[in-house]
């Protein structure tokens, strides 16, 4: 059984790595797993099974025996970009699979629990075809940012009220993008990838049978993308030149602090509320793509290209509110609301990286049959519109561009306790 689980996890990590995610607390998913997502992502002080690996690791200590969970989400973003003097262009149909797989167990009859999981932390992506470039020709804007994490987790019951947990996040991220590749100075970048290590500490304190509080701290994940390739369009004359070494600097996954509280007004009801602070201001500033080693001769001074994306994201506060009600032994229903301040400033809005959705409503249920849980949740991110208000300049080519975005996500998960 353990050998099989190892094979499954390794396969999922490999299969999931190229998948893009579109997430909406900045680039983070609002929750991981159908239970957390069904409650709007309010999960810091809520007992969890395997999904504690991606949430509050201290909640892994509530693992009573052994549990394996497999599932994920399917995310369908709907976006429209309107550039000055042009009509709106909708993005192409996209359905992103975001997998999750995890295993957790108590170590013998001890106070320790251990688990490992692989999951989509977040990302973003757009696919606008037939949008006019700055020269007025049909062109495309495309981006795909994906971030997967493999997370071994350890949790400890200090007392029957206090639990602590720690997770090591081994992350793999990839980025591809097209920035008007048919136009002058257009770029087609593929294959940028990076491995990274980060960590999360978590605590949970059960004040009494009704109230619990929890907190987590996540370190920053420094990402050094390389191994990519850039095709740069010099326009008539030189045409397109492929640079065989491309890298991206200063793109970082942020540190984060979360606090949460849960309340059980009766044995059947559970209410939860989280506040998170996400330090995007330190993570996403000016992202620079550097390309070198051109495949064909280029004039002196063009051996290395440097393309800056001034983004200067703002720190983000996220508020998550969730409720759960157990109808009977087999059915539990949930609902939630999540608000995450838009971290993208008006004056640096870039339609390649528009993580702008703020309001989410969620609903879900769990069907329990003997040792099996079948979890399901739907999440709707409401439309948010934003216009680039910055003055036009070489580093702000999207001045006056408007982006509109909403999305729907379906979460499913199956868990087996043994």
């Amino acid at each position: 059984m353990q050998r099989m689980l190892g094979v499954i996890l390794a396969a999922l990590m490999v299969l999931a790595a190229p998948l893009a995610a579109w997430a909406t607390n900045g680039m983070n998913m609002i929750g991981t797993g159908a239970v957390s997502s069904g409650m709007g992502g309010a999960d810091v002080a809520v007992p969890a099974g395997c999904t504690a690996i991606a949430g509050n690791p201290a909640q892994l200590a509530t693992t009573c025996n052994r549990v394996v969970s497999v599932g994920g989400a399917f995310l369908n973003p709907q976006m429209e970009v309107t550039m000055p003097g042009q009509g709106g262009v909708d993005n192409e149909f996209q359905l992103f699979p975001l997998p999750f797989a995890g295993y957790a167990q108590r170590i013998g009859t001890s106070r320790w629990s251990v688990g490992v999981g692989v999951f989509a932390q977040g990302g973003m992506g757009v696919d606008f075809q037939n949008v006019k470039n700055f020269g007025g020709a049909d062109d495309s804007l495309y981006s795909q940012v994906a971030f997967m994490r493999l997370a071994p987790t350890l949790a400890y019951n200090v007392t029957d009220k206090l639990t602590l947990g720690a997770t090591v996040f081994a992350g793999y991220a990839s980025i591809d993008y097209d920035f008007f590749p048919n136009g002058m100075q257009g770029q087609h970048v593929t294959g940028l990838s990076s491995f990274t290590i980060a960590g999360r500490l978590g605590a949970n304190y059960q004040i009494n049978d009704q109230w619990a509080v929890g907190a987590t701290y996540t370190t920053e994940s420094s990402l050094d993308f390389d191994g990519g390739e850039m095709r740069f369009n010099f326009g008539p004359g030189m045409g397109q030149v492929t640079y065989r070494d491309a890298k991206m600097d200063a793109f970082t996954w942020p540190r984060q602090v979360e606090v949460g509280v849960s309340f059980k007004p009766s044995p059947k009801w559970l209410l939860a509320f989280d506040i998170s602070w996400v330090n995007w201001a330190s993570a996403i500033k000016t992202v620079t793509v550097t390309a070198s080693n051109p495949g064909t001769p280029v004039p002196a001074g063009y051996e290395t290209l440097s393309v800056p994306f001034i983004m200067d994201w703002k720190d983000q506060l996220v508020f998550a509110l969730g409720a759960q009600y157990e109808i009977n032994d087999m059915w539990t229903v949930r609902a939630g609301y999540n608000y995450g301040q838009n971290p993208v400033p008006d004056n640096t809005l870039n339609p390649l990286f528009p993580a702008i959705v703020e309001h989410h409503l969620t609903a879900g249920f769990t069907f329990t049959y003997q040792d099996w849980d079948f979890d399901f949740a739907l999440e709707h991110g409401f439309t948010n519109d934003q216009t680039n208000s910055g003055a036009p300049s070489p580093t702000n080519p999207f001045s006056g561009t408007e982006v509109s975005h909403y999305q729907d996500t379906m979460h499913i998960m199956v868990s087996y306790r043994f």
Partner: protein
Amino acid sequence: MRRLRAMVGLAMLAALALGALPAHAAEGGIHWLDYAGAKAAQKKQAKPMLVYFHLPYCYRCKEMKNKVFSQAAVIGKLNAGFIAAKVDVDQNPATVKLYGSDYTPSYVFLDPGGKQVYRAKGVMGVERFLGMLDYVESRAYERQSLDQFLKGR
């Protein structure tokens, strides 16, 4: 004056009644014994025994405590018809080994003669737990599964 006497009388009767009740009932809960105590009690009383395996920090055990073991019907049924043993699996490795039950929460039932007759695990609701107690008490395990028994009720 007559009313006062009546009230004092009633109060005395109530106090006597409370005093006559076993300590566990006065505490309002299940009369849990440790495993050795339960085995000793079973030798004196011809009752089936529930051996409940738990951990103090097991979330699902807390769920059973809050949702099931706190219910009057469960408390009454267990106290009246069963000997109830509570085994902390971390503190009682010998008992865990004896029954091969380190899963929490889990339940092992012994007949009045001390023979293991039924076992179950996991969180369950009040109805199913009470049904399981009826199932063991009526010896229905000799002829059908718990699910068949519950469907036929």
